[in-house]
């Protein structure tokens, strides 16, 4: 393809974008809405997967002893844990340390503990890492049976719930996005149909003097792709603005939740949405071209 031809294609595409301005705006808006839904569900899914990952990397089993367990018995349990062949690492957290650690974590809110005076409400506990995180449920059940073990906690439920949630977010997002995406494709097809209609005379002449089919199609296809692309730009701007607000809120209210704000992540979202927008636009144009542009 020659360079001047490329210029011609873009020129023609923009000319008719301007001509059908109302329909163009409507198409861009529907593309933007469907991509907003796509974008927010992708962001939610990626974020919850990220959170699960960060959780999973320090997922451990907390084996909590009865508060009044004598030191000797605590040590016996510790030895048993260390010698277990499915366990990779055992850390002992004595009562005193647990209190200090909690005070640090809570920061300002550490004031709560003043009320307790010198009493230490914390039991001795062991943090146990499994060689394979999938064994955690089995191990937890086993540890529960050890003498003087009060409770066994592990984070797998959280991880599972989170993954479940992100699954449903994904399904729901897909359904709504499918519907909106369909509407967007339809509106773009309508826009392109009008353009084809407005240009039918030119198209007839192009055919009769021997323009190739793709030469005739490209300006229409480009017009649709631009509609989709502009829609994705709108969606990305709105989405990022909303995300910035949401991140700010999450980081102050729920500091333990990890959110992704790195440029690579945002760029990835932009790429996905732009590609989806252009694809929606191309699909809409192709539908109209197949039906109404007989080349």
């Amino acid at each position: 393809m020659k360079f001047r031809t490329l210029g011609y294609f873009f020129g023609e595409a923009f000319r008719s974008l301007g001509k059908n301005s109302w329909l163009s705006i409507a198409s861009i808006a529907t593309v933007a809405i469907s991509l907003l839904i796509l974008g927010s569900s992708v962001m939610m899914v990626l974020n919850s997967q990220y959170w699960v990952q960060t959780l999973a990397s320090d997922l451990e089993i907390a084996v909590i002893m009865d508060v009044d367990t004598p030191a000797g018995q605590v040590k016996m349990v510790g030895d048993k844990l260390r010698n277990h062949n499915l366990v990779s690492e055992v850390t002992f957290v004595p009562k005193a340390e647990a209190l200090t650690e909690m005070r640090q974590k809570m920061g300002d809110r550490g004031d709560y503990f003043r009320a307790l005076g010198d009493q230490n409400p914390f039991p001795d506990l062991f943090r146990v890492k499994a060689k394979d995180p999938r064994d955690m449920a089995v191990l937890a059940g086993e540890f529960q049976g050890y003498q003087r073990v009060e409770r066994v906690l592990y984070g797998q439920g959280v991880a599972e719930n989170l993954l479940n949630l992100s699954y449903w977010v994904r399904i729901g997002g897909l359904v709504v996005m499918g519907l909106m995406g369909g509407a967007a494709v339809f509106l773009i097809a309508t826009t392109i149909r009008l353009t084809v209609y407005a240009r039918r005379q030119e198209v007839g002449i192009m055919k009769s003097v021997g323009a190739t089919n793709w030469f005739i199609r490209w300006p229409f296809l480009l017009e649709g792709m631009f509609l989709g692309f502009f829609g994705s730009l709108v969606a990305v701007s709105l989405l990022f603005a909303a995300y910035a607000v949401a991140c700010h809120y999450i980081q102050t209210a729920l500091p333990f939740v990890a959110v992704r704000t790195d440029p690579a992540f945002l760029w990835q979202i932009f790429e996905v949405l732009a590609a989806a927008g252009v694809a929606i636009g191309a699909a809409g144009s192709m539908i109209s071209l197949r039906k109404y542009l007989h080349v």
Partner: protein
Amino acid sequence: MIQMHKVTKAYPNGVTALDDVTVRIQKGSFIFLVGPSGAGKSTLTKLIFREEVPTRGQVLFNGKSVNRMRAREVPFLRRQIGVVFQDFRLLPHKTVFDNIAFAMKVVEASVKKIRYRVPEVLEMVGLATKVNVYPHQLSGGEQQRVCIARAIVNEPLLIIADEPTGNLDPDMAREIMTLMLEINRRGTTVVMATHAREIVDVMRRRVIALEGGRIVRDEEHGSYEQKRGPAR
């Protein structure tokens, strides 16, 4: 240059527009297609540039099968054929220059070539002074000359004209005919479907007469109607 062998064209609605037509058209010739309305003249011309495909039979252009040609070869067939329409089909919001340049642009001619070639054909059709005028500012005859200029601008081997003078008064029709003759004299083959009796009778060129989709007459120096032979 053009060969049709036992060509039948039936439209989807059941009308048989051409019925077992066999004809051969030499390079450089000037052909009139005559016959009553509905005889199949337009259909015959459309088969040549593959606006339509025959139901049966073979159409060859320069030895190549037009009916069996692949879709992506069709544009390159059409670049060798210029078509002149009865209703001109000029783009109303483009100037004369741009209308003709458009035909070159869409076959990816260079800007340099367009700048040189468009004035050349406008000169040839006698519209050198109307370069920047819009079609509605031209007379019917002038519009038809723009259409002819557009048809020849890419230097086709063949010009197909379907009733090019159908919308014009006799004086203008004569001008157009003179122009078509000039184009033919320079070596381009011309196939013209027409109802213009006087012109056909004066020119004495090859006449192919169709009726009901069949060739009923084919004479080297023919007239519009069958000459009545002497009473027997």
